[in-house]
Each structure stands twice: as structure tokens, then as C-alpha cells.
């Protein structure tokens, strides 16, 4: 669980940008949560407040979260550029106005079609990801999506 305006320099500090994504991921959230990369488990969700991912276009921010096995990002709102980057990498990002009702350690279930996130206490609504983007996310991101499209073009 993170607060408002979590920026890309906090998610992945600039001095690590020259390294591989595996290395960068080990420093994810280092300035504010130094143990994050060690504590996080594949399938975990990251929950934020308003304007999650503010700042840089560096794709390593969502890429590091994907590298650590984050299943989805849930926030009250996302910075537009970060949002596009996350979906392009096949990492679902959902805009949930009630994200702050989620508590640390909650087991969550997401229903992308219905736009619902179930906490142990209640169901919270979120804006479903637009269909043309959800198709890309299902393909695993823009790169595999393009691969599929290019293959269709050459076989047709």
C-alpha cells in the first residue's frame, strides 16, 4: 500500500537505469520502502493513491514491478504515461476510486470483465480497462501483441 503521487524516481531510482531489469527490480521503491523487493511475492498486488507513477517515461518502473511478479496495480488514479507503459508491458493497472479501502495484507480477487475487486470485507468497483487495451494485456503486452499481428499479416 502506497500513498498519493508515488513517482517513478521512487519506484526505480535513476542511478540504476543503466543496469538490467533484474538488477533494477532489486531497488524497486528503495527510497521509501527499502525492503520491498525482498518482501514482495509473485502474485502480490501494489495499491496506490492518486496519480501513481508520476514523473518519468522510464518504462523500467512498471517493468520492475512486472519483474517482481506483481499481478496488478490498483490505484485511485495513475499518471497517464505510466498507465500506458504498464498496459504496454502486459501489467494490468486498474483505476479504483475506493483503493484506500484496501488494507495491507488483504487477499484480493480481481474481475476484469465486471470491473470488481473483492477484499475480505467488500466488493469495490473499478473502471474496466478499455477492450482494445485489455486484448493487448491478455496477449502479454504490446510486443507479443504486435508479434501476433505481424504473424497474421504474413500468413493471410
Amino acid at each position, binding site marked *: 500500500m502506497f500513498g498519493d503521487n508515488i*513517482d517513478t524516481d521512487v519506484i526505480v531510482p535513476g*542511478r540504476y537505469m543503466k543496469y538490467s531489469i533484474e538488477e533494477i527490480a532489486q531497488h524497486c521503491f528503495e527510497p521509501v520502502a527499502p525492503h520491498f523487493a525482498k518482501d514482495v511475492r509473485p502474485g502480490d498486488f501494489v495499491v496506490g493513491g492518486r496519480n501513481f507513477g508520476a514523473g518519468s517515461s522510464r518504462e523500467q518502473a512498471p517493468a520492475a514491478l512486472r519483474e517482481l511478479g506483481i499481478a496488478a496495480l490498483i490505484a485511485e*488514479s495513475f499518471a497517464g504515461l505510466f498507465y500506458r507503459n504498464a498496459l504496454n508491458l502486459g501489467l494490468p493497472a486498474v483505476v479504483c476510486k475506493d483503493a484506500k479501502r484496501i488494507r495491507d495484507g488483504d487477499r484480493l480477487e480481481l474481475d476484469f470483465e465486471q470491473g470488481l475487486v473483492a477484499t475480505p470485507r467488500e466488493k469495490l468497483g473499478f473502471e474496466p480497462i478499455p477492450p482494445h487495451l485489455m486484448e493487448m494485456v491478455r496477449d502479454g503486452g504490446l510486443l507479443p501483441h504486435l508479434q501476433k499481428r505481424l504473424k497474421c499479416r504474413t500468413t493471410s
Partner: protein
Amino acid sequence: MKQTLAQKLVARAAGRSSVTPGEIVTCRVDLAMMHDSGGPRRVKPMLERLGAKVWDPTRVVVITDHYVPTFDDESRKIIRLARDWVREAGIDNFYDEQGICHVVLPERGHLRPGMFAVGGDSHSPTGGAFAAYMFGVGATEMLGVLVTGEIWLKVPHTIVMEFDGALERGVSAKDMMLFLIGRFGMDGGEYQAVEYRGAAIRKLPMQERMTLCNMTAELGGQTGLIASDEVTAAFLKSESEIWESDANAPVLAHHRFDASELAPQVAAPHSPANAKPVDQFLSIRPSVAYIGACTGAKLADLRMAASVLKGRKAKMRLMVAPASALDVKAAEADGTLTTLRDAGAEFLGLGCGICAGYGGNVLGENVVAISTTARNFKGRMGAASSQVYLASPYTVAATAVAGRICDPREFVH
């Protein structure tokens, strides 16, 4: 139907006569700009994986700025890869160590009013100062553009920021932006198009307009736009089409301010949204004054700093990382660089410098700095314990001279 400037630009790129905010359209990209960090080293392996080529090398511009001057094996490898790749891909528009991409792109004549452009960097809205729709994308999205020449877009609403009157001497575009970000927050732009209008905007020279559109990134807009006029044409040294919003085109919000009442602004660590008038920071004593970045080290910015520093000495470490080679040449010719040098400035190489926090130079533990850059996020420019105050080139220069944060208007009258 009345259309905003943003709608007109998107409609042209989508091959439509008009578009409606909120609808999703596919746009043809006129220009794709990349730098060394998010560019060749990221897109090359993906292009190879796809077995695809760049859709139109004449529409791609590559500029090295993040890892120059090189400082270790990794940075040398990144730059070498960029140089090799542009040759392989047949990209002639390559500017190597000529300055920061957002400044180099328009000064080398690549931007024209009416264009639709993407940049592999979050400060790409800078291009909107030329009445071009330009916004930042990540490396994978850039790959999509390089392969298809297209990108999807949700047609933005327009938020108008209108400034009447004229700025007082010693107050600049940077102060306007810090004020707006302080007022509306880092998501005030709602990832829509922010259009700057009004008498005070028309009076701004081109590089000051670029500062407004540049910091639209920190205001949270997708792009920042200014209608083209005779100032645009003069900068581009050619007749250029007029692109502007229709009178009374519907907008999401229209805010009006009087520029003549605006005081210099300073943003406290660790957010540009912590902006307040300079008089609330007078007890702060930084040890470093930094003039750098696409936001704050263009020729216009260097001249602002020089107007304060003329005949004075900095009482703290003053570092200057000019934004472009052409700006350095002009600043050398008109005496601006001599003024800065005489005041005690140390010069860093051409490029993003300390601002990106990628390079050899970073701020050490507990350093307090005042900077002309756009972002003071925790740890961005160096140690997580460093404290960065954001201000205009006037205010940073005045602070360097006074030894504490101070109002630059005392120095320029």
C-alpha cells in the same frame, strides 16, 4: 463544430475533419524522437525480436543526452549502441552530444506547427510550444510507433490556463508553472491537453513558452499547447501556419490569472507541487545552486541567470549544465557565459546532467540545493537525503549570490 487546438491537431493526424474528446482514435505519427536511455538500447532488441524495420527513418530523430558525457563502461556501451544503431537503421537525424533532446529538436528545425509527434521522454510536451501535438511514451510504445507509424489516443479535453497582463521583471515562465502545479497539483492536468493563452503568454519568447509546455509534465497533462503566431514563425525562421483553437470551442476548464501579480515561486522538497511564493523560503541556505536541464538551462535561462549574476560573485557552489550546443555558442557570443564564469560558475558537459540522476554527477548525502530543473522527487538527483528546492534561473542565481534563498526582483531592477 468548434474545435480546440488539441482537437484540430489530433483530427489532422487521425485523418478526420473533427474529433470528440473521449473517443479513441488512431493517429499517424509525423515525428518520433528518442534519446539514448529510452531509445536505441531498448527498441533495437525488440525490433530484432519482431524482425521488423523502422517504418520511416526520415521521421525519426535520435539525440544523445542522458548518458553523455560518458563516465563509465556502461554509459560508453549505451552511447556506442545508439551510434551503431542509427547507422544500421538508416536514421540521418542523429544529434550526438549536441544538447538535450527537447531543446535540440526544435532548434534544428524538426518541429512545425500542426505536427503530431511522440517522444521517448516525459518532457516531450515541450514540443507543444510550437503548436504541435507532442507527448511522451515509453520504450515499448515507441517500438509500436517505429513498427506501425501509428499510435492510439483518447482525444483529450482541453484545460485552458490564461494569463493576462505581463510578468514583472525577474519573474518567468518557470514561476508560472510552479504556481500552477502548486495550485492544481501534479495531477491537475488530468492527462488532458493544457493550453496556455493570454496576453502574457503571447509576450513570452519561444524558449520561455517551451518551459511552460515542458513542465506540463509535472502538471500531469498529456501535452501542453500554445497557438502558433509570429513569435513561432520568427524562431523557426520561416512562414508557419497558424494553428489555434476556435473562439468559444468548449473546454473542460478555463482558469484566468493576472501575470503582473505573480511573485517568484519556490517548490520545497520533494515535490514541484510544494510551490509557494519565494518570501516563504528566505531562511533556507542551500550549498549548491544548479542551473541545468531542458527546463532551466536554455539560452533564455542562462541569460536570466546572467542578468542577476553580472558583476557579482556566487557565495556557494554554482554549477551550470547548458541545454544545447547552439545555445552555448550564442551565450559565448553575447557574453552570457563570461558573466556566469566570472560569477564563479563551474560548467558541466552538454546533456541532462544532474537532473536525470543517471550520470557521474549526483548530489551527495544531506546536500541542500536550489535548482532550475523540473523535479525534486526524493533521491532523483542523488542521495535520498539530499534536499532540492525548485526555482527559476533568476531565483537560483539570486540565491547563489545572497547565500540564502531570496527574491531576484531585488537584483534586476
